Structure formats: structure tokens, C-alpha cells
């Protein structure tokens, strides 16, 4: 077989562009038509590294665009690992490690560090913070009723997750907005790119350093004033007799702030828009809100598809759809594409709240990296949409301004009249 001698650099790149800045500047639905073409051709395709303005050595990546393959690779932790990198773009290794905590780790390290955090996310623990989340949602919605024309993202969608994240980890009210802004800078890293490589990387490093400093001071506080909370768990943890370093706690803080803020925020913004443009669906939900919100939330998350995708690296040669993924190759699992795969979802582009089963990729493709915060996210969506639909039935929703990002399907601004 001649393929044995083909190095990654010699492979032929797909003629479907999903790498350029021009591609990522397009709206979600236009990008989806390229992903649909890739799914149609087999769903396993080789592409140039996603365009960035700083130097890198990534020879290319495999795009995994079909639902079944995303599940298959997500569940195969022997053949596909995360430590070499999880980002769609070729972010430098050391920088990426400082942003991702256990997300960019494999077992046994992943298991150990994730378990320190997961105790705060069990169904029983979520029940304990549920009342606070519902109270926050009520306060946020009450605060904007009658306010006239507002930016829904800044006044509503971004506020609840920011408070939830801050409450869970002990960030003070005076600092929580700065934490959310730093998280947003990290995910919108290419949105305000000036083309100057130093600026893009420096912006990420500055946001990282700020979140690390927040993590360090929260940790220092909990070392001297232990409580019954997540940060106390982290500072008191000993693995083989050794505690977490400040760098590890900093990287936890970045993961927690990014994963906790922007995912729920984007889903909320996308959903308020979809409910407004699909009145029949909104009506269906309102007819039995308590009985239907559970199944509806799965569709909020699938349709909103907040996380674009995450990368894995092959530990061995792997055959898929007639292609050979080589040991060491990067693969990107495009959750945005899996969520529109017609093989799994009939009328995949439509917003159908009663959809069941709904095996979507809003929380990943399964396996040990499945979104730890899924239950907290669902609780927030339930609380917020319960308040909104009840108290603001006549909300008028304008057109969203999309965030240009390779990591999040974001909404920067969404004008509403409330």
C-alpha cells in the first residue's frame, strides 16, 4: 500500500474549505452547508490547519462531521486522546494546557482531577443550588421587565451563568463581570483580531493571567478559611500526597469560567430567538411548561449548538470510512455538524421542541469528557425560560449579531424590546 508512505504534509486536502477566516466569518447556516457536503462525502476529511495569525506547525487535521463517527471517536479513549490539544485552532500546547485543566488530560490524571470537581455537580448537589439559580433568574428577568429596548445578551443571557459560576466558586460580585469578560475574550479570540499575531496571542495570555490570578486568590482564601465548597475541595485535595499547584488551580478557573459562562449564555440567546421565530413551538411548550421543558431543553441545546467542536489525537493508525487516520494525527469532532446530521435528526435544521430521542452533541459526543456542567446548564435554562415566558410573553426579538469564533457559536448582541 502506497498510503503507508504518505506523510500528513503530502495528503491531499479536501476542496471544501472549513479552515479559512472567510469561512469562519460566515453565518452558522452557511457554514453548515459546507459541513453537510462533508457529511455527504463520508464525513472523514483532511483539511489545512484552521487559519490563525500566529505561527504554528500543525500539518492539518481530520474533520469528523457525521454523528455516528463523533460518538465512536468520543467513546474510544484508547485510540483518541486529548492531552496533545483540544482546540479547533492550532493553539500553542503550553498555552492550551493552561486554559483547560482536566479537559486536556487523559486517564489516569483526568480521572483524578475531574473527580475533585465532579462532586460539586452530582444531581443532589445541583438540587442544593437550584433555589439560588431560580431566585437569580427571577431577579434578572424582573430587572429588565419594562426596560424597553435592551441588549438581551448583556442584560439577561450572560448574567445568569455569570452569577451561577461565581456563586459556585466564590467569585465576589465586584469581580464576576471581569471574570466573564476574560472568559469571553478567550473564546472570541479571533473576533477582534487585528491581524497582528502578537495581539491575538497576547490577548489570550492576558485573559489567562487574569483568570489565574482570580483562581489563586480564591484558593488562598480557602486555604485559610475552609468552607463546604468546590474551591475548598480543590485546595484540600492531595494526589499521592501532593496538592494542586497554583497553575493547576488557575487552569481550573479558566475552564470553569469559559465552560460555565459562554455555553449557557449562547444557548439562551439562540433559544430566545428561536422561540420568537417559531411561535407554534413556543405555544406547544407553554401548553404544559413543567411537563415539556425537560425534553424542550435538549432541543434548545441541540439547535443552539453552542460548542463548535473539540479535537483529539490518534494514538494509533485508525481506519474510518476508507480513510487512514495516522497515529499522531489531529481529528476535530465537529459537534455543530453532528447536531445537523440528517441521518440522526429528521429536519435537522428545524427547531422541534418535542424531538425525541434527541442524541445531540451539545454536551459532547459521550465518553469521559462529557460536559460536567450539563445539569447546571439545564437547571439555568429551565429557570430562565420559565421566568421569561411567564413574565415577558410579549417580548419582541430583533436580529442577532454573531460572534466570529472557531470554538463557540456565539451571539454578541441581540436587541429585544421587553
Amino acid at each position, binding site marked *: 500500500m502506497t498510503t503507508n508512505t504518505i506523510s500528513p504534509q503530502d495528503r491531499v486536502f479536501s476542496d471544501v474549505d472549513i479552515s479559512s477566516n472567510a469561512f469562519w466569518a460566515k453565518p452558522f447556516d452557511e457554514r453548515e452547508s459546507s459541513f453537510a457536503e462533508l457529511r455527504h462525502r463520508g464525513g472523514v476529511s483532511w483539511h489545512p490547519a484552521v487559519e490563525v495569525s500566529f505561527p504554528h506547525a500543525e500539518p492539518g487535521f481530520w474533520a469528523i462531521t457525521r454523528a455516528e463517527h463523533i460518538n465512536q471517536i468520543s467513546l474510544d479513549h484508547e485510540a483518541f486522546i486529548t492531552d496533545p490539544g483540544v482546540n479547533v485552532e492550532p493553539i500553542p500546547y503550553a498555552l492550551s494546557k493552561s486554559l483547560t485543566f482536566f479537559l486536556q488530560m487523559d486517564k489516569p490524571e483526568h480521572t483524578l482531577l475531574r473527580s475533585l470537581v*465532579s462532586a460539586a455537580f452530582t444531581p443532589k448537589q445541583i438540587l442544593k443550588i437550584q433555589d439560588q439559580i431560580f431566585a437569580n433568574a427571577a431577579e434578572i428577568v424582573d430587572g429588565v421587565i419594562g426596560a424597553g429596548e435592551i441588549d438581551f445578551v448583556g442584560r439577561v443571557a450572560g448574567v445568569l451563568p455569570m452569577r451561577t459560576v461565581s456563586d459556585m466558586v466564590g467569585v465576589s460580585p465586584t469581580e464576576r463581570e471581569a471574570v466573564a469578560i476574560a472568559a469571553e475574550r478567550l473564546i472570541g479570540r479571533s473576533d477582534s483580531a487585528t491581524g497582528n499575531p502578537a495581539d491575538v496571542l497576547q490577548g489570550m495570555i492576558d485573559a489567562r493571567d487574569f483568570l489565574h490570578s482570580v483562581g489563586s486568590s480564591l484558593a488562598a482564601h480557602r486555604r485559610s478559611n475552609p468552607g463546604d465548597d468546590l474551591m475548598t475541595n480543590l485546595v484540600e485535595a492531595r494526589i499521592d500526597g501532593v496538592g494542586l499547584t497554583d497553575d493547576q488551580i488557575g487552569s481550573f478557573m479558566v475552564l470553569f469560567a469559559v465552560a460555565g459562562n459562554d455555553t449557557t449564555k449562547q444557548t439562551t440567546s439562540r433559544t430566545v430567538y428561536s422561540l420568537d421565530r417559531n411561535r407554534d413551538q413556543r405555544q406547544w411548550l407553554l401548553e404544559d411548561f413543567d411537563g415539556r421543558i425537560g425534553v424542550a431543553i435538549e432541543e434548545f441545546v441541540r439547535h443552539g449548538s453552542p460548542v463548535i467542536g473539540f479535537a483529539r489525537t490518534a494514538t494509533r493508525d485508525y481506519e474510518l470510512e476508507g480513510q487512514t487516520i495516522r497515529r499522531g494525527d489531529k481529528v476535530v469532532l465537529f459537534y455543530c455538524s453532528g447536531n445537523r446530521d440528517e441521518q440522526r435528526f429528521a429536519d435537522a435544521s428545524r427547531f422541534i421542541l418535542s424531538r425525541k430521542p434527541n442524541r445531540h452533541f451539545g454536551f*459532547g459526543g459521550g465518553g469521559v469528557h462529557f460536559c460536567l456542567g*450539563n445539569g447546571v446548564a439545564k437547571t439555568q435554562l429551565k429557570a430562565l425560560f420559565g421566568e421569561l415566558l411567564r413574565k415577558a410573553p410579549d417580548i419582541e426579538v430583533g436580529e442577532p449579531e454573531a460572534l466570529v469564533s472557531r470554538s463557540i457559536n456565539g451571539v454578541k448582541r441581540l436587541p429585544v424590546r421587553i
Partner: protein
Amino acid sequence: MTGKIVLDRSRCVGLGLCEAVSPEHFEVGDDGNLTLLREDVSADELDIIEEAVEACPTRALVLERHR
């Protein structure tokens, strides 16, 4: 028909999506470990347990069906 829940501990990460579906059968403790409160599944519980098994993102649960 009745059934039995089988848990593969090597796969379970204690997310508790099963508990969200059926708290009568599943409980994730404060240590993050999943406990099967009841392994046996009655005929009228088969559907809900099937849903819990389907919900597991790490595929750690299997429902054995008995005639």
C-alpha cells in the same frame, strides 16, 4: 418481562444522568460514585430504565431483559 440493571464501574464517571431519569434506581453519592439503589427492574419500569441506560454518555449501563 422483567429486567436487571448491570453497571460497568470501569466506565462510569458519576455524572448522574441516570439519576435524573430515575432517582429510585440510581444515586451518585458525595464521593462521586454511583450506587444502584435497586438492580431489579419490574415490567412497568422497563421503559424508564431503558431511557436511563440510553442517557448514559459513557455507556456504563446495560439493561438485561428476562422473560
